């Protein structure tokens, strides 16, 4: 996963809502869908994506009164930082388990004061652009 993909995993409208809905709470896909106005199919799909990325997990499977199985999800994301600076995007996810996942850039400093990456900017050529 590159930093842009990591960032979009978080900033996507539905993902952000699901992460908020599951924060310190166990909640089913159906409940997330109706509380946050997410179409149910998209909600299941996005939950799957977030689950695969390790940002949420299924913590309980309960049996409803109608005898159907219902998965309850909870967020594993504790903090997330996405920084865009000098044209560089970098992302850091900190999971409840203490695992830190970094995407792109230099994260050697602390999250708030990491040194900016000094990258030469390619000025490009307008001629190249006009030839296209």
């Amino acid at each position, binding site marked *: 996963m590159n930093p842009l993909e990591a960032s979009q995993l978080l900033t996507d409208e539905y993902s952000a809502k699901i*992460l908020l809905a599951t924060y310190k709470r166990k909640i089913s896909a159906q409940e997330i869908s109706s*509380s946050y106005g997410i179409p149910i199919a998209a909600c299941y799909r996005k939950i799957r994506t977030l689950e695969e990325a390790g940002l949420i997990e299924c913590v309980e499977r309960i049996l409803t009164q109608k005898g159907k199985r219902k998965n309850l999800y909870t967020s594993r994301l504790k903090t997330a930082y*996405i*920084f865009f*600076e000098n*044209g560089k995007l970098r992302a850091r996810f900190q999971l409840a388990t203490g695992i830190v996942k970094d995407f792109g850039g230099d994260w050697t400093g602390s999250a708030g004061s990491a040194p900016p990456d000094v990258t030469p900017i390619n*000025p490009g050529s307008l001629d190249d652009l006009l030839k*296209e």
Partner: protein
Amino acid sequence: MREKDISRLLTDEYAERILVATHDRPRSVQEISDRHDIPIAACYRKIHELEEAGFLQCAQVVTTPKGKAMKLYQSTLRKANLVFENGTFRVMFEFHGETPLNGRWIPLNPEPVTPTP
């Protein structure tokens, strides 16, 4: 620009790619569309939205060899931070030049449509 609109503008797949694409130098809509795999109509629409919101500006108008005028856009964003902490999202922007949004933390929390039990 209202805070609600900022959240809607940036929780968008294309907006982020366009802002990354235009940070270092002005680029044409066609070039952004080609390089970043954004459908051309969506690319024009999104660029206009970002321009109205002050995240992009037309930096240059060039004439192509065919004699058409072509606008080149560049991002006005110097820095952007998005933070998720304690169950809330917030963002902060720094622009080249002065804007009321500069350096201010803006909460971005989609409210539930109906309260959850």
